[in-house]
């Protein structure tokens, strides 16, 4: 056996791992959707608290159900099955964190936390996804969201500016993720 053979075996092993990760259920896409919902819901807290509560009563179960259905269908069709436990744990964590961030901000009259909370929660969610997916790209998204959250506090943006900033970045991020995933799939041998 020579070094090239060992290198080739390692490369093949890494290819197989990457292919499996790429082909797995991708429930995290649904999770990103739910994280987006959390940001939307917290932006509603500027107007009133009651729509937020009503929103979560429906959005929480609908979002969780969407993730479960999506993962189940994808797993059955693709032939490779991932454990949903980590995704479910992250989703529940995101819901609790985002709700708590909004509540704390309003309860203690700290508007900065209410505005900073959604971006921070989304950053935490993306960081967890980055860990699961072993993806530097998703990790970079997490850090950029965190930078936005810090900028919101640092420059004391008003609620409208904060919301526009978060949603603008969110939109760009989702588009970038979508295009890069598509590009990555095309590059697979």
């Amino acid at each position: 056996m020579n070094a090239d053979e060992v290198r080739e075996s390692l490369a093949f092993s890494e290819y197989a791992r990457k292919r499996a990760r790429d082909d797995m259920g991708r429930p995290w896409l649904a999770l990103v959707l739910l994280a987006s919902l959390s940001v939307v819901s917290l932006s509603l807290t500027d107007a009133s608290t009651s729509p937020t509560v009503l929103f979560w009563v429906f959005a929480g179960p609908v979002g969780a159900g969407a993730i479960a259905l999506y993962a189940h269908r994808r797993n059955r069709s693709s032939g490779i099955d991932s454990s949903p436990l980590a995704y479910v744990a992250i989703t529940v964590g995101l819901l609790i964190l985002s709700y708590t961030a909004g509540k704390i901000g309003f309860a203690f009259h700290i508007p900065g936390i209410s505005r900073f909370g959604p971006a921070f929660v989304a950053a935490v969610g993306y960081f967890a996804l980055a860990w699961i997916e072993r993806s530097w790209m998703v990790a970079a998204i997490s850090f950029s969201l965190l930078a936005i959250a810090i900028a919101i506090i640092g420059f004391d943006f008003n609620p409208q500016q904060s919301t526009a900033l978060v949603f603008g970045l969110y939109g760009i991020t989702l588009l970038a993720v979508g295009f890069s995933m598509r590009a990555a799939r095309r590059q697979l041998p």
Partner: protein
Amino acid sequence: MTHPSSALDDTIHQRVRLGILAVLSESRRADFAYLKDVLEVTAGNLSQHLAVLEEAGHVQIAKSFEDKRSRTWVTVTRRGRAALASEVAIMRALLDGLGSGQRA
């Protein structure tokens, strides 16, 4: 004194078997058709490799009926995961200790 390459596990060092364990280590389970597609092997070839891995206790194979068709799901065991991790570590160590093109 033994050569470092003697630490490699012949059961899983074979390319296809290494690929099977690599795929399974990333997932909860994978079906036969998926493995055949990813590893680009024939059904008979894959069956033989799976039998070797199952006999060594590295994978578990379960058959089920879904939508009126038979489906074979393969799961990696704890022993299989450990064996793969060990194999990859040995190969990396071999590479680290070698210059390009030298005999391992």
